[in-house]
């Protein structure tokens, strides 16, 4: 083979070897251990702190019984406490640690209730421009018992 072609193919071989080398560095060692993902991620996820206590904790322990039983009967019963009030595991295990106050902005309610073409017809939707005179939703609606205006 001509020397210049030899050089060209050597260069090509170097590029391919460099790719294989970089790949071996970039792909984590535990990749593919269980499936098409990093095997170590299973342990990492498992060792993360628990953030959410679950709605039942709020009612079962007896602290927020009244609100819980109202919410439990309402149309919002599929929306968990922590959806609005934020992750509360720390609060559940130590009541001195208060969770963040609930987000009661119009846009937060609007995540579910602003008009969207993809939502089913019967779903309660409003046009934020014309509905409610820019007041906070909770000014008229009780989020724990919607339609209780």
């Amino acid at each position, binding site marked *: 083979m*001509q020397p210049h*072609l030899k050089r*060209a193919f050597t260069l*090509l071989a170097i590029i391919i070897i460099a790719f294989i080398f970089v790949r071996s560095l970039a792909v984590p060692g535990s990749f593919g251990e269980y499936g098409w993902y990093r095997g170590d991620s299973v342990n990492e996820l498992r060792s993360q702190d628990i953030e959410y206590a679950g709605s039942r904790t709020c009612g079962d322990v007896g602290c927020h019984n009244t609100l819980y039983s109202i919410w439990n009967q309402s149309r919002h019963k599929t929306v968990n406490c922590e959806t609005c009030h934020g992750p509360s595991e720390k609060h559940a295990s130590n009541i001195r640690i208060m969770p963040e106050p609930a987000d009661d902005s119009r846009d937060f309610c609007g995540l579910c209730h602003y008009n969207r073409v*993809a939502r089913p017809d019967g779903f309660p939707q409003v046009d934020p421009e014309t509905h409610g005179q820019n007041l906070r939703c909770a000014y008229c609606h009780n989020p724990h018992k919607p339609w209780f205006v």
Partner: protein
Amino acid sequence: MMENLVWGYIYPNEAEIQWSILIVLYPYITGLVAGAFIASSLYHVFGNKDIKPVARFALLTAFAFLCVAMLPLLAHLGNPQRALSIMFTPHLSSAMSGFGYIFSFYFIVVVLEIWLAFRVDIVNAALNSRGWKELLYSALALFSYDISEKALEADEKLGRKLAIIGIPSAAFLHGYVGFIFGGIKANPWWSSSLMPIIFLMSAIVSGIALLILLYLVVMRIKKHPINHKTLYSLAHYLWVFLIVAVVLEMLEIISIKYEALEEIEIIEHLLAEKIAFTFYGIQLTMGALIPFILLLLVGVIKNRDKLKVAMVAISSMFILIGVFAMRWNVVIGGQEISKSLAGTMTYVPVFFHHEGVLPAIIILIIPFIILRVVTYILPPWKDMMEENEEVAVSSE
């Protein structure tokens, strides 16, 4: 506002169209690459001497567009640094995972072929220049300056082998892009085994059209007379491939209509309401029928070169627009029908957005800048001029 964009019944997650104008651009640019490459191999492999003046220029054009072929996808993904993951850990059950490897393989073939085609020029430039130019060309020559007859013979041998590998890999590269769409069984407008070959044929058509336009522009800038033999030969191939491409596209539509499966109603709605203008107007009339007639006339009319050059130029321009419309009708059209087969959505392009029209325009301009730079380093003009002078002399 959204209400006006939706017709009939759609699923909740379909209201927003995810694959934007950038995904229209991706098969378009890849197609130009494959087309320009195949145009160059008409000379390099099939030995059509008429194509010789533009053969090396076509390789550089393919290279310039190949450099940006990934950009629309990277801009669309929003997390371009993750792009390498598809090459590091490709999941074989996904058709998309092949792109990195197919693209890289093709890139190597194109670069090697350009290197071999320009090696004599590179070595001469390295020997006859000083300073940074000498360094640049010496590096490009890999510091090996052997241009003896024996060396060139070896080059030519390898070049021919590469071109023979290059044609199937160009066909594979673009057939594969068609396969990404054709393999989606959930979408009746895409799911078709004809899709890869339709994409490939329209790619060749658009690549040759681009090459013709670039050739005409270059000759005008260089103020050199056009080599009519080359131009008409390219126009002839353009005409033949255009016929094949349009026949395949029509076969696809006809078989959908004739089979009349459950999706027929929504596809008829799509063709009549959603993409009527871009399909019948631009893709078929402007991009196929008018160029077909004009190119036919170019083949029939004797003499009157000025008129014929204008007709070839107009056909090429219309074909480039028509093929873009074809990509649009496939990519956007396919997403505008709901999986419910009972409703449609509408794609509204935005201008200033990372997936908007502005980045699409920028991405379309970049290859021309790259081409300017590459042709500055490796000027292919000599081929175009030499032939011309012969023609000019003989016609006088």
